[in-house]
Each structure stands twice: as structure tokens, then as C-alpha cells.
């Protein structure tokens, strides 16, 4: 039996579901499939808390949203993409409203907006502090009404099929039965999300293992700006669970061990009791996370069994604001930290949160490989540049999920070739089947558990490619990752069952993560400047002469790497200084 569709979407999170609906609406004759390793409503979009940005208020403008995004991204954003993004974001959020998303409201019934970090106007729409949850369930439930959308729930994609430079499907296996199948397609859209699990301490769910980035990279498509990894300043120690920026937007303060609002020492403005846009606690995430490291170096953070922390103080907001605007924050603090933010301080520290880099696409979500598209956190369009602003990702999923869906649908409707693929494709499928059945499921012996390799990879990334990096720390990390690739090949696999084999999934995820980790480290090593979230202690200044450029990393057929540096597209906002709080 061959499984075949016009468009196959890998991933059922916000980007994947929006893309699926876009395909179904563009051309109802097309058959579209969503393949997802978890049930779509379990995708990581469900965890997003704070909100989604789009300029709708009369005091706001598209240009201001664009400028905030571009300066927030330290001028590495593609400005044409940003202009399209800010223009389409309001329409997309309104569409979600029409589909039933329970946005929080003003007393008169209009959608409410809240401030967010790095944004000069209140433009972040929210559904209390469970925005991603509501957005994802709304999309999923709405997708159920399209009969042309087929789903492969709990199917794991292991490989992209490529015929003569053109992507023509995927290989995947069904978790429940273990059956391995080729699913052919005229166009494939990767919507697999980010890769936070490459690091030891992250807000990201277990499933965020960079699969789509590695799938594309192995197939020969370039990854862009992989050195830019966002640390969010406020994660709970031990678990890494996120305390949303909305907590600071509603008026929360960050204080050091002396109760001092230390951000005032880092060129982020002067403290005032009420939140001030683009100032202090509402500065951008890269600058806040960097300030934490400096504060720790000065010995002004608090020592705990789970590392250095500072405190997030919400006590002055009172229980009414906390319960109406931040109920999930309270729930999470009570469950996981035994702390009640109404009365107590919340311990927090920077935590790996979001991947600015990803599969290189143009403004339509198309990659340089024919038939391959990408959208959402897996992709890099790039609207986020060197540092994403909070609440820009959810609208990005919608805007570029829709665009990629439309582009893939147009491509699939006009594609002359069938989706089946020839002998070359069948050979790839057989090779992949052999790898899965023989090398992985059939592996005997082996030295160490895969968790040992994974833990060491994570430690390597934290040591070598954290908030601050240097040529030396990165070169060391590169060597260690190389050795870990070798160790992965001989690691032990104990589970030989076909039925819901989660060890096999973990092994495949680890192998994807090792490739992604290498692209992060190599891209970081070669960017000899500091910009946004990429801070080199040996090159502390931004260098527009050499690096006002995206980095593209390719894997050649022989496994070697190749870099390119295309210049950033500047439309209306020439590079300037990033100014916050003054």
C-alpha cells in the first residue's frame, strides 16, 4: 500500500494546523495530511502563556510594530518579511477570534491587549495566561470541520524523500503498530517546532527536539541563523517551567538578593512603580538574561540547590490582578515551587526558550529545495533576527503557516509530476527501513544508555554555547559533539518491540538533536561579533561591516559543512543603536 497526498504537513502545532486549513481553503480538491508525533492538541504551542502581538489599537501602527521587532532583533531581521508579518498579524488574530478563540476582553466587548517586552505600545492579545492553549485548541477544533484534512496522529517522521533535488514525501512510522511507511506528496511543509531540548535547562516540552531542522539539513536544505538561541529571563529553577513575561507586563519586578531592582544598572532605564513600555522589566529578553549573568558575577544573586536565582516580585499586584490576568502563573508556582506569588517571591533564572534560527525560507515559507516548505519555530523567515520579541511567535505561526500552506497548495496544484517517485525514491525508502529495523530496533549490545549521551550533549551546549560564548568554549563544544556522535552510534538500545517503542523515538530524537547542536555551535563559532542573543566574550561588539548578514549552514553530500552569508534585507530601517529605558 502506498500512502499519498498532495501536501504533507509534518507537525500539528499552531503552524501545522494553520497551514493545513490554508491548503484546504486554497483548493478543496487537494488532499492534505497532518503527520504528528503527538496528538495535535498536545503540541508544544499548547504551553504558550503570555499572548500574541498585532497592532489593532488606534494609537498603534504597523510601522511601530515593525520597528520594535527589527530593533528587538538587533537589525538581523529580514525587513520585507517583517513588513508582511505586521500587516497580516491583525487579520490572522481576528480570524482566530472568528473561529472562537476566547480572547480576554475589554468591558465593552473588544479584544483586550496588554504590554509586552520590547514593545512600545500595548498590542499583545491574550487569553488570560493560557494563550497558546486556547489558540491551539481553537485551531485543532476548527480543523476538524475540513474533511479534506487527513491526520496521522502519533506517527513519527524519520526522513525526507528527495528525488533529483525535489522533495517528494517522508518516511514515517506509526507508534502504536510500529509499521514503517513512505508517505509521498507533491509538497511537504515542515512545522515541527523548536529545539530547546538540545540544552539541559529549558522551558520547552519533551517533544521539542529539532526534528524538522535536522530532517531538512540532512536532505540538503540550509539552516539559517542557528547561533541565535533565546534565553527567557524567568524560568522556575529545577523544572525550567516558564513564568510568562506577562507577569512583568502586569507590573512584576525583578529583584536581586538585596531586594534591589538591578536592571537599572544595565542601561535599561530607571525604576518606577508602574510598568513603563520598553523599559526595565519590559526590556528585551536577551538584555535581561545577560544582566542576570553580570549580576551573578557580582555575587548579587541568591544561591540555591538548583543554581543562582533572582526573584520575581508580584506581591504588590494583589490577588485580584493575579487571579484574573495570571491564574496559570499562580497555579504553576503553587504546584511546582510551593510558592504563592500573592504573598511570596518567585525564584527565577534564565532558561533556554526559543530558537530564532531554523530552516531557511523565503517570505512564502518556501525553502531553496523544490517542494519543501517550512513555517513556525522550525523555520527562519526571518522576522526574529538576533532576538525574538515575546508574543511575536504565535502570530508568526499563523501568518507564515497560512502563507506556507497557500504556497504549497499552489505548487501542488500545478506540479506536473506525480507524487509517487521513481526507483531512486523506492531505494531511499528501503534504506531507511533497514536503518530503523536493523540498526536501531535490531541493535544488540552497546555500551551506554542513550540518556548518557543526551545528558552530556546538553551539558556541552550549556558550557560552550550558553548566554555568553567564546571561540575557545565553542571549539571545545564542537570537539565534544563530534565525539558524542560517535558514542551515539554504539549506545545501547534495550527495547526491540514494535509497539509504542518510546526508546526508539528517544534515539531518533537524540540523533536529530546532535546534528542540530553541531549547526548551532559551528554557526556561533564563525560569527565573530556580538549581536542580540549571540554574545561572544572575545568579540563583544556588533560588527555590521562583516556580519549584517544571515548565516546559512549546509551539509554537503559527504557530510562536510558549508557556510554562506547573504546580506540582510533592509527596506526602511537602517541599523541603529538599540535603546531601552531612555
Amino acid at each position, binding site marked *: 500500500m502506498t500512502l499519498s497526498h498532495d501536501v504533507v504537513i509534518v507537525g500539528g502545532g499552531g503552524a501545522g494546523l494553520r497551514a493545513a486549513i490554508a491548503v484546504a481553503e486554497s483548493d478543496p480538491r487537494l488532499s492534505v495530511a497532518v503527520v504528528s508525533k503527538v496528538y495535535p492538541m498536545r503540541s508544544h504551542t499548547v504551553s504558550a502563556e503570555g499572548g500574541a502581538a498585532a497592532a489593532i489599537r488606534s494609537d498603534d501602527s504597523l510601522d511601530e510594530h515593525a520597528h520594535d521587532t527589527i530593533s528587538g532583533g538587533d537589525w538581523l531581521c529580514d525587513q520585507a518579511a517583517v513588513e508582511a508579518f505586521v500587516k497580516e498579524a491583525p487579520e490572522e488574530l481576528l480570524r482566530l477570534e472568528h473561529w472562537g478563540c476566547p480572547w480576554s476582553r475589554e468591558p465593552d466587548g473588544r479584544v483586550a491587549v496588554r504590554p509586552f517586552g520590547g514593545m512600545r505600545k500595548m498590542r499583545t492579545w491574550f487569553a488570560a495566561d*493560557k494563550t497558546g492553549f486556547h489558540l491551539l485548541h481553537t485551531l485543532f477544533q476548527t480543523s476538524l470541520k475540513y474533511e479534506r484534512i487527513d491526520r496521522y496522529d502519533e506517527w513519527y517522521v524519520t526522513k525526507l524523500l528527495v528525488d533529483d533535488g525535489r522533495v517528494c514525501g517522508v518516511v514515517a512510522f506509526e507508534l502504536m503498530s510500529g509499521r514503517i511507511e513512505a508517505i509521498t506528496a507533491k509538497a511537504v511543509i515542515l512545522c515541527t517546532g523548536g529545539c530547546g531540548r538540545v540544552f539541559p535547562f529549558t522551558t520547552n516540552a519533551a517533544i521539542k527536539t529539532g526534528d524538522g531542522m535536522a530532517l531538512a539539513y540532512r536532505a540538503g536544505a540550509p539552516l539559517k541563523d542557528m547561533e541565535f538561541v533565546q534565553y527567557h529571563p524567568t524560568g522556575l529553577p529545577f523544572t525550567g517551567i516558564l513564568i510568562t513575561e506577562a507577569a512583568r507586563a502586569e507590573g512584576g519586578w525583578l529583584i536581586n538578593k538585596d531586594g534591589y531592582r538591578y536592571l537599572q544598572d544595565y542601561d535599561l532605564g530607571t525604576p518606577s512603580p508602574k510598568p513603563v513600555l520598553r523599559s526595565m522589566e519590559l526590556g528585551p529578553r536577551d538584555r535581561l538574561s545577560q544582566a542576570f549573568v553580570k549580576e551573578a558575577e557580582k555575587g548579587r544573586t541568591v544561591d540555591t540547590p538548583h543554581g543562582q536565582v533572582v526573584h520575581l516580585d508580584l506581591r504588590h499586584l494583589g490577588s485580584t490582578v493575579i487571579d484574573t490576568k495570571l491564574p496559570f502563573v499562580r497555579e504553576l508556582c503553587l504546584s511546582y515551587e510551593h510558592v504563592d506569588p500573592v504573598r511570596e517571591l518567585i525564584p527565577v533564572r534564565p532558561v533556554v526558550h526559543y530558537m530564532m534560527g531554523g530552516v531557511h525560507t523565503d517570505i512564502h515559507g518556501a525553502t531553496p529545495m523544490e517542494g519543501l516548505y517550512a513555517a513556525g519555530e522550525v523555520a527562519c523567515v526571518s522576522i526574529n533576527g538576533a532576538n525574538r520579541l515575546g508574543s511575536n511567535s504565535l502570530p508568526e505561526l499563523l501568518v507564515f503557516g497560512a502563507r506556507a500552506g497557500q504556497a504549497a497548495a499552489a505548487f501542488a496544484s500545478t506540479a506536473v509530476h506525480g507524487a509517487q517517485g521513481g526507483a531512486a525514491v523506492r531505494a531511499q525508502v528501503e534504506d531507511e527501513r533497514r536503518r530503523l529495523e536493523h540498526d536501531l530496533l535490531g541493535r544488540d549490545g552497546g555500551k551506554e544508555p542513550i540518556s548518557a549521551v543526551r545528558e552530556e550533549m546538553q551539558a556541552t551546549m550549556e558550557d560552550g554555547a550558553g548566554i555568553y560564548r567564546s571561540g575557545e568554549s565553542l571549539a571545545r563544544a564542537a570537539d565534544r559533539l563530534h565525539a558524542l556522535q560517535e558514542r551515539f552510534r554504539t549506545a545501547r538500545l534495550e527495547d526491540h518491540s514494535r509497539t509504542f517503542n518510546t526508546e526508539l523515538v528517544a534515539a531518533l530524537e537524540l540523533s536529530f538533536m546532535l546534528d542540530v547542536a553541531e549547526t548551532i555551535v559551528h554557526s556561533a563559532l564563525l560569527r565573530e561579533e556580538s549581536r542580540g542573543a549571540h554574545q561572544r566574550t572575545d568579540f563583544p561588539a556588533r560588527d555590521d561591516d562583516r556580519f549584517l548578514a544571515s548565516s546559512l549552514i549546509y551539509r554537503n553530500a559527504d557530510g562536510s559543512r558549508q557556510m554562506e552569508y547573504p546580506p540582510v534585507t533592509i527596506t526602511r530601517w537602517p541599523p541603529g543603536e538599540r535603546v531601552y529605558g531612555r
Partner: protein
Amino acid sequence: MADLITLRVTRYRPENDTEPTTQDYEIPLRKEWAVLDGLNHIKDHLDGTLSYRWSCRMGICGSCGMTVNGEPRLTCATFLEDCAPGPIRVEPLRNFPVIRDLVVEIGDFMRKLPQVKPWVIREEEASIDSEYLQTPAELDQYKQFSMCINCMLCYSACPVYALDKDFLGPAAIALAQRYNLDSRDQGSAERMDVLSAAEGIWSCTFVGECTTACPKGVDPAGAIQRYKFTAAMESLKAFLLPRGTR
């Protein structure tokens, strides 16, 4: 040395086992560890063959529902300390076929979901230039029922679903009500047939176990009771009033 606690885990591998068995694992008893952290410790350090689902580990994705000491729970939000001294029994959710170990088959629920038409139905789609106005009070009408994370704890707790797999079940009915009560929706008539059928609301004997089990404060039992009243009024109207005036 950290204190230890025993997890008594149900194992079932269909290729080898005809019946489920249990296996004991000793794990560290740490203050901050949830049952899920214990399972992850087993998977990573003691036995790579144990299968279970998990993802967000913050109580919102709905993946990690299991039966802990006899109760349906999210294992990421159930702490070892609260179950001490152990052994802590970890079993798959009840009322579902078991695929393997702690993983259950929820296809039945996934097939029921579209039957209640959980999307906004309008006679006329408004243009996308502006939002439908909805006051905070109107939002409150349905908000609670929109908080369901599809974790399946309510189906596992439901005595009716245990006996009758045709029963639509608490989460699906609550979701239908979530849309029926949304001021933007005009589709309640279209959801009526499936809700009022024998396998819809009338199967429910109002034990309320679903509401007790819900980790997110949704009240499916309340949704069902409330809909029974609506449905009764509708059928009364249908009986009393001639067509056209309804």
C-alpha cells in the same frame, strides 16, 4: 543518600505478555519530583523499555494521565511526597484499551470529537475586518468549558463510559456546551441531535466523578445537567408548539 520510594508500575508488552504484570522500581524520593520525574528516572537510568506518554510537564498538554494509587491523575502534577511512603501504584488509565505498559488507546474519543461539531457555526460569516464583540460576562458563560485539556481523566473516572463505550462522554459533551454557550456561535440546533441521542446526555447518571477527576476545574457534570434541562425544554416546546413558531 536520598530517601528511596518504590514505584509499582504496570507492564504490558503485547508481543510477550498475555496479561499485565507489575514491576517494582526503587527511585529517589525528592521533594520536587512528580510521579512523572520518577518514571523519567526509570526510563533514563533503570529500564529503557518502559513506555508512557509525556510532553509539557506543566499540566497543560494532557499527555501524561495515568492511574496513580487508584485515582486518575496527571503524573506531572502528582508529587511523590504526597503519595509517600509507597509503594506508589502506577497503572494505565482505566476504561481504555491498553496499547502497551502505561499507554492507552484514545481513538474512540478522537472519533467522537468531530461528532459534536466543536467549531463556531454561523449562518453568515462576518468579514474579517473586526472582532465579534463579546463582553467579559459573555465570555464567562462558556470560559470554564473551554479549559478542557483532553487528558481523558474524566473518561477514566466515568462509570457510565466504563459500561457503555457508545456514551459520548464528559469531555465531548462539555466541549459541545462550550460552543453552544459562546455568544458568537449559532450552531446549537446542529449539535442537538447528537447530544440528545441515547448515547448523548441521557446516558449520564450524574455521578459527578468526571468533575471530581478534572485537573483543570472544568465541570462536565454541570454541563451535562444544564444541557439536559435545555434539551427537555426543547422537546417540550416541540410538543406544545406547532412548527414555525418554535
